[in-house]
C-alpha cells in the first residue's frame, strides 16, 4: 500500500471502530431491567467497558483477520517473511495504552463502588481488616449507605436468612416473617444477611446487587428500589443439590401498597408471633 492511502485507511478504520464501539456500548441490551439506585451506576460502568472492549476486540481481531488474508503463504512460495524481531516504540505503545485504560477503569471502579455505597460498610463501623476473622456479631460486610444517605438510619431494616433451600425474611420492627421480600419503592432499605447451615448468596439481578450469606459472618446490602414490580431473588452460591431451586421474589410496592401488605401480614401472623426465625442480629 502507498503512504497516503494507508493514512486515510487507518483514519477511516479508526473512526468506524470508535463509532461501532460507542454504539455497541450504549445499545447492547445485555442487562436486565434496572430497579435499584445502584443499577444505573453499574450499567453505565458496564457499558463503558463494553465500548472499550469492543474497540480492542475489533482492533485485535481485525489485525488477525487482515494478517491471515494478506500474509498467507502463496502457492509455491517457500521463503520466509521479513526477519523483524520487534519494535521498541510499538511495544512501549501497547504496554502504555492498555496501562492507561486499566488505570482509568480502576479509578472509575473505585468511584462507582463508592457511589453504590460499597465503601460505607467499613468507614461507619470503624471496621478493620482483622474483623475478617470476625464473630457473628461483628460489623457487617457488603454494600452500605450511598454517600447521599451517609449517617442516616435506613427507613426499613429486614433480616434475611439463607438456608437450604429457601430465603427467610424477618421484619424486626413489625414482627412479620415471610418467604418473599416486600419493600417500598424509593426507600432506603437495609438487609442484614446471615446463614446458619452453608454459604448462600443473595442476588437480585435487577438490582445488580449480590452478597454472600456466610455462616459466622454478618453481611449486609443497603439499597433503594426505584421501580415497582416483582423481581427474582436468586441464590448464587452453590449450597447443595437443590441450589438451583433456591429462588424467591422481591416485590417492590408503592408506599401505600406496602403499608397495606404490612398491615395484612402483621395481623395474619399475630397468633404465631413467638415463632420468629432465629437470625443473627
Amino acid at each position, binding site marked *: 500500500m502507498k503512504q497516503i492511502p494507508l493514512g486515510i485507511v487507518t483514519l477511516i478504520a479508526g473512526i468506524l471502530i470508535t463509532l461501532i464501539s460507542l454504539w455497541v456500548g450504549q445499545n447492547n441490551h445485555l442487562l436486565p431491567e434496572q430497579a435499584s439506585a445502584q443499577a444505573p*451506576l453499574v450499567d453505565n460502568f*458496564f457499558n463503558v467497558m463494553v465500548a472499550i472492549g469492543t474497540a480492542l*476486540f475489533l482492533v485485535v481481531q481485525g489485525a488477525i483477520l487482515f494478517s491471515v488474508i494478506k500474509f498467507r503463504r502463496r502457492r509455491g512460495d517457500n521463503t*520466509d517473511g521479513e526477519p523483524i524481531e520487534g*519494535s521498541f516504540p510499538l511495544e512501549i505503545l501497547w504496554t502504555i495504552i*492498555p496501562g492507561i485504560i486499566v488505570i482509568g477503569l480502576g479509578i472509575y471502579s473505585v468511584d462507582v463502588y463508592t457511589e453504590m455505597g460499597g465503601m460505607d460498610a467499613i468507614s461507619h463501623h470503624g471496621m478493620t*481488616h482483622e474483623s475478617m476473622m470476625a464473630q457473628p456479631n461483628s460489623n457487617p*460486610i457488603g454494600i452500605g449507605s450511598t454517600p447521599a444517605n451517609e449517617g442516616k438510619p435506613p427507613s426499613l431494616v429486614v433480616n434475611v436468612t439463607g438456608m437450604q433451600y429457601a430465603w427467610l425474611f424477618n421484619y424486626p420492627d413489625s414482627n412479620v416473617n415471610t418467604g418473599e421480600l416486600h419493600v417500598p419503592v424509593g426507600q432506603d432499605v437495609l438487609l442484614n444477611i446471615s446463614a446458619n447451615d452453608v454459604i448462600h448468596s443473595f442476588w437480585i439481578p435487577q438490582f445488580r446487587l449480590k452478597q454472600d450469606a456466610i455462616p459466622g*459472618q454478618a453481611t449486609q446490602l443497603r439499597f433503594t428500589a426505584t421501580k415497582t414490580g416483582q423481581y427474582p431473588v436468586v441464590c448464587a452460591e452453590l449450597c447443595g443439590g437443590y441450589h438451583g431451586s433456591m429462588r424467591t421474589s422481591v416485590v417492590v410496592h408503592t408506599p401505600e401498597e406496602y403499608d397495606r401488605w404490612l398491615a395484612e401480614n402483621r395481623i395474619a401472623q399475630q397468633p404465631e408471633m413467638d415463632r420468629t426465625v432465629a437470625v443473627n442480629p
Partner: protein
Amino acid sequence: MTQLETSQITTVVTEHELHQRWKWYDYFTFNIDHKVIGIQYLVTAFVFYLIGGLMAMAIRIELNTPDADFLDPNLYNAFMTNHGTLMIFMWIVPAAIGGFGNFLVPLMVGARDMAFPKLNAIAFWLNPPAGALLLGSFFFGGSQSGWTAYPPLSLITANTAQTMWILAIVLVGTSSILGALNFVVTILKMKVPSMQWTQMPLFCWAILATSVLALLSTPVLAAGLVLLLFDINFGTSFFKPDAGGNVVLYQHLFWFYSHPAVYLMILPIFGIMSEVIPVHARKPIFGYKAIAYSSLAICVIGLFVWVHHMFTSGTPPWMRMFFTISTLIVAVPTGVKIFGWVATLWGGKIRFTSAMLFAIGLLSMFVVGGLGGVTLGTAPFDLHVHDTYYVVGHFHYVLFGGSVFGIYAGIYHWFPKITGRMMNETWGRVHFALTFVGTHLTFLPMHQLGLQGMPRRVAMYDPQFAGINHICTIGAIVLGISVLPFFFNAIWSWLYGPKAADNPWDALTLEWTTSSPPAIENWEVLPVVTHGPYDYGRTVEVNQTVQTASI
C-alpha cells in the same frame, strides 16, 4: 550449522545404543526417560479429558431443559464438581506442564534428560491414583461441593467422597511441586553452554515462570485442603463457624493457590503459542524479551489478585478495591503477549497447518476471554455477575478457547517429533472447524445468561433461560463430536501415518535437530547453538544443513 557436522565426528556412543527405541510396554512402566514420561502424561491426560468430556455432555443434556429431569440433582453436582476437577487437575495441568514440559524442555535446552529423572517418574505416577480416587469417589456419591470445595458445604456433603477428592488433589499438588522443582533445576542448570539466555525458546521461559508459580502457591492449597480433611475426618473445626472456625479463611487459602492455578494452565500454553506461531508464520517472534518478561510479570502480579474471586464474600471494602486494581494490572502483560503474537503474524508467510489454525483460533478466542476477565476484575460489576454463567462463559473462553486450543496446537505441531509420524492435515482442519464453531456456540451465549440472571452450578433454572441454554447444549454436542476426528486421526496416524522427517516444519529450535522420534538419549552429540530459536527469514540455508547434518 557446520558445528553439528564437525561434532558428528567426535561421536563416542555406538550406533546400536543410539537407535534403540522404547517398546510399547515401556510406556506402562516406571520409566525415567523424560520423553516416555511426557507421553505418559499426555496420553493419561487425554483419557481423563474424554471422561471429563462425557460428564460435560451429561451436564449440558441436563441443562437443555429448566427442570432437573435427566440427572438426580446430587449426581448433577457430582458430575459438575468432577468435570471441573478432572479438566483442571487431570487434563490441562498434566498435559500442558507434565506432557509438553517433560517432552520438550530437555530437548529445547539441549539436555539428555531432566535433572532428576527418578523424581520425574514419581511425579507422573502420582497422577493415575489421583484420577482413580476421583472416579472411585462416585461409589460414595461423588464429591458435590464444586471444584472450589467451600466449607461448610464440603464438610457436610458426601464425606467419604469429599475425602477422596482432597487426597486426589493433594496427590496432584505434590506431583506438581516435584515436577516444578525438576523444571527449575533443569532449565537453570542443564542448558547447553552454547545457548545464551536470550536464545532459550520462549516455551522454556514459560515453563520456568509456571514452575516458580507452582512452587510458591501449591503448598498453600495443600495446607488448606489438609485442614479441610481434618475438619471432615478428625473433628477439628478450622472451618466450622459454630465452633469458632472461619469459612472465609478457607477461601483465601484456596484462591491464593487457585488464581495462580489459572496461570499454571495458561502460561505453558502461551509458551506453546510462542513456538508454534513463528514456525508457521515464517517470521521471528515479535518482541522476544517482552514475551519472556511478561511471563515473569504475570507470575509475580498473579500472586496478588486472588481476592477477585471473593468480591461478594466476607471481604471488606479496601480489599475489594485493592484487588480490583491489581487484577486490572495483570491484563497489561497479558496484552503484551497477544500484541506480540499478532505482530508476529503481520508480514509473515502464514502456513495454515492444523497447528497454526489452532494457534490463531486461540489468539482470537483468548481476546474474548481476556476482555471478559477484565470486566470481572472490577468489583462493582462483579457484584452482579459473580457466580453466574457470565463467569462460566469467561473461564471457558480462556480454558477451552485458550488452554485446550493450545494443547491441540501443540499436539499437531510436535506429533511428528513425538511419534515419528505425520498427522492427517485434512482431518486436522475438520477438527479445527468443529471445535471453533462449537466453542463459540457453547460459551458465547453463556455470557448473556449470566448477565440476565442465571446463576452457575444449578441443575434447575428459571424457564425464561431455556432458549439460550438450548443453544449452549447444541454447541456442546458439536464440541463432543469435534473430538472424534482428532481421536481417530491421532490413533491412525500414530500407527500408520506417513513417516515424519526430522524437521518437517523447518523449525529452528533444538528439538528438531534430532531424529523423529528422538533417540533415547536425545542426541549422539549434544548440539551447539549458533543462532536464535526464531531466526526465520535469515537462516534458510542453515536450515537445510541441519537436516542433512542430523541424519
